[in-house]
């Protein structure tokens, strides 16, 4: 499947319903609804545990196909994407910070970022170093990922996600283990990148986080 450059990555969900949640989605503002997330918008999806926040992002990231209804990126039904299309999308158009972070435990923090950047050739080493410093990880770069705290891992995963061009950035509870200061620094970094690339931001959270201007907040 070919992607025309800078096709607007508007996301459209038509009556999407994950099979495991079938029948339990009556009051959702996302499941079994028709909604459009416009290109460059900022969206918050909040819900308590078990309502399918991670499921939603997994569907959007092509990791789950056990759902009814359709999801469109622009005009393309993402069910039609083949393996190679997904690799392409994940390298150039769609970023994700996984809730379980998906770091390689036996690699260092730096190598975890490097392995992504090598694929995309997006950042110079100095830029990566700068992000590490900004998020307070300058002295942790050479440490094996398995010896980092969850909060530190979250920040490494965020840096890795920013080592690629994207039109959509998906963040799955990215600040759940961060103190207010690092949360703030993370937000700043994300906002800057999204603005620079005109990217859509979709963030999930347990509670509506205050103080931020989202275009729309959905109760899942």
């Amino acid at each position: 499947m070919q992607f025309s450059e800078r096709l607007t990555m508007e996301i459209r969900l038509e009556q999407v319903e994950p099979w495991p949640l079938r029948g339990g989605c009556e009051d959702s503002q996302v499941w079994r609804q028709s909604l459009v997330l416009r290109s460059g918008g900022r969206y918050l999806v909040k819900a308590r545990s078990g309502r399918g926040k991670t499921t939603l992002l997994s569907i959007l990231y092509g990791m789950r196909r056990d759902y009814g209804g359709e999801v469109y990126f622009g005009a393309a039904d993402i069910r039609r994407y083949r393996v190679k299309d997904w690799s392409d999308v994940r390298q150039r158009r769609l970023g994700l910070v996984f809730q379980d972070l998906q770091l390689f435990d036996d690699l260092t923090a730096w190598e975890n970022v490097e392995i992504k950047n090598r694929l995309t050739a997006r950042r110079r080493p100095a830029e990566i170093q700068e992000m590490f410093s900004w998020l307070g990880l300058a002295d942790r770069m050479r440490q094996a990922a398995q010896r980092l705290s969850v909060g530190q891992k979250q920040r490494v995963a965020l840096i890795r996600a920013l080592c690629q061009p994207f039109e959509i950035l998906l963040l799955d509870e990215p600040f759940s283990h961060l103190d207010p200061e690092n949360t703030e620094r993370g937000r700043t970094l994300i906002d800057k990148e999204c603005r620079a690339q005109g990217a859509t931001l979709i963030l999930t959270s347990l509670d509506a986080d205050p103080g931020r201007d989202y275009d729309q907040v959905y109760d899942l």
Partner: protein
Amino acid sequence: MILARLLYHGLGWGRLLMAVGSALLGWLLLFGGLQFWFLVDHNLIRRGDLLAPEFCIVHKPVPLIGLPGGTGITFKEAEIADIKNQRFVQALAPFECSRFQAHASIVFRSWLSGLETDLFFESIPDDYLDVDLKDWAWTPGTDRVPIIMPREFLVLYNVGFARSQNLPQFDETLVRQVPFTVRLSGQGQNREFAGRIVGFSDRIPSVLVPQAFLRWANATLGEGQAPPSRLILKTDRTAGPELERFLKARKYLYNVERLRSSKLASLMLLLVYVVLGFGVLILGLALGVLALSFQLLIVQNRERLERLIRIGYDPGRLIWHYVPPVLGVLVLANVAGMAFLIWGTGQAIRLFSNYGYTMEPVSIRSCALAMALLAVLIGVWHSLALRRRLLRLA
């Protein structure tokens, strides 16, 4: 480097080295055997020394009191069909026999006395002959008839008869030039022909005339066709032992001497087959272990691979990190194989020459080509298998 660390995490080096070692061993056995086969084929089979199709002449034992006309020793249709149906019999022809009186006489110009003798003729189809067939043709109306004699017959005459009787000795070229008269009689008719010996056969112990001539003479002067009492068989080059068993079971007689070389031939072939068989077996097992090593690696690193695919690595491209080592092994196998073939061919030729066989060297080109082809096949097969596994993770 980072990627290689992830992709080859937990690789069993010992197992892999053993698999590579055995694959090399199997590879060398297989292609060594193949090259040996080419060598034997080129030098012995094509040249006809050892493994050429065997001709075997079969007849029945004469009973204690033979009946006139030899009905006891002729082959019946069913018996001929039985022999023909044996797996190792490629073709078969009966000896046709003259059914008339024949008399040959030579008159020497410088001697008063001549030589004369009563004769009989037989004939077999031309393709069973081991003689140059240049002057062999006979067409009705021609009064010259070509004759083939057994070489042993001339030898016997020269070294035995001629010396004991104080008669002149002849070499083959001379005998070919001696004109003699062949007088045939039967059914109240007489015919005279100018006979000429056109060749000497090692294979056929009989006085032969062209089949067309014999059939014409039998029809004109004789009592028609009689059932054959001798058969000539063209058999597989390796049929020796099996043929011998069969003939013994039927209580037929045959010329044993000729079967001996085919025993050697089948032994040689057996050796080649054993080597080839072991080569295939070892190579197959080793390739299996090698393939399993990689599959195991993928299973062990399943989570890492899935993770790489999730952060955007294309599984179709990840396989290229697994393919080069296998290609390396294949290239190594080809280079080692080629060196082994060159060295081994020389050794084999030296070995044969110790036993008195001169072997021409055979180019390793066919073998090298087969090697390269197999390497490509294995490479492609391996890549496709890995690709299928990796795509399943996506």
